[in-house]
């Protein structure tokens, strides 16, 4: 693509990274994989460090971060959406939130500047995992027949309408849910990365011509960086909250 006489790199250059280790195998490692490994390690490290025994009762440092994260998930996700019996999903939801957050936030960290969730692999895997979990929970709580009946034939609908409602519910519960969960996270990160790249290229190209007009896109770039930090948090939160909604729907069917 070519606009304002400056060369915009093809989209594949922004998202395809060359493999740097274990070429041509299933375990090939590139920048995205490194970011995911780092996000996993950071998530585990935070909670391992926060959970070690210590003398004072007052949380400080990393323990404070972990505890406020856990409280946030408990207050605004689990208690609001599932209820008190959703407490056993706290570890899942908390680690999901922190993992998605850490692999999103690399979008704005200098010298990394790539959202690992801008590739479809992990969003799709996480969505499949969530799909498995809420189906297993539903079958366990309501039985196979009850789960299918409650999810395909929601109560309170006049019976002739079930010929239309049941297929729609079938598609929306078992196909659209995981698909939209994965696409939402992925497309948000792709869009944010493209936005930042566009303004960065624009300011670099204007700087080459004359320094004064480059201030405008650069100010926009800084604004957008702040906005993308917000989006990273929000997408991690929304991923967690939707997981809680799906699990809660399988645990407490509508009566």
């Amino acid at each position: 693509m070519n606009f304002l006489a400056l060369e915009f790199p093809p989209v594949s250059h922004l998202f395809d990274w060359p493999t740097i280790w274990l070429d041509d195998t299933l375990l090939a490692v590139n920048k995205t994989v490194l970011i995911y490994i780092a996000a996993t390690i950071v998530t585990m490290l935070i909670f391992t460090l926060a959970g070690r025994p210590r003398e004072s009762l007052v949380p400080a440092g990393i323990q404070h971060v972990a505890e406020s994260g856990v409280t946030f998930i408990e207050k605004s996700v689990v208690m609001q959406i599932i209820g008190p019996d959703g407490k056993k999903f706290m570890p899942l939801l908390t680690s999901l939130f922190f993992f998605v957050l850490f692999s999103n936030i690399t979008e704005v960290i200098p010298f990394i500047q790539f959202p690992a969730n801008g590739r479809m692999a992990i969003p799709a895997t996480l969505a499949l995992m969530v799909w498995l979990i809420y189906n297993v929970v539903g079958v366990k709580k309501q039985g196979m027949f009850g789960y299918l009946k409650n999810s395909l034939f929601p109560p309170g609908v006049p019976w002739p309408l079930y010929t239309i409602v049941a297929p729609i519910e079938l598609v929306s519960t078992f196909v659209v849910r995981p698909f939209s969960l994965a696409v939402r996270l992925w497309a948000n990160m792709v869009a944010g990365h493209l936005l930042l790249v566009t303004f960065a290229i624009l300011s670099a190209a204007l700087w080459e011509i004359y320094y004064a007009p480059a201030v405008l896109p650069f100010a926009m770039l800084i604004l957008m960086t702040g906005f993308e930090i917000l989006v990273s948090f929000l997408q991690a939160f929304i991923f967690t909250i939707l997981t809680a909604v799906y699990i809660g729907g399988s645990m407490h069917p509508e009566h």
Partner: protein
Amino acid sequence: MFSILAQIAAGELLDGLKAIGAGLAVLGYGLAAIGPGLGIGMVVGNAISAMARQPESAGMVRTTMFLGIAFIEALALIGFVAFMLMLP
């Protein structure tokens, strides 16, 4: 003259059509953003008026608001994905 036309048809016409296709893809994304924009505006506006009326229910309203935004936003994002896939 025919050779010139043939040259145009071979190279530049294709480029022009590609540019038109890209323009149409951008237009399509713009169309896909209209509905979700209106929808998110309604959701957030009503959430704000609910929070102003009952500040004690702000936490619950905020969580539900983000849920509604997430469901609506999926439509705009699917439009964006189709736009990215259609770019020549």
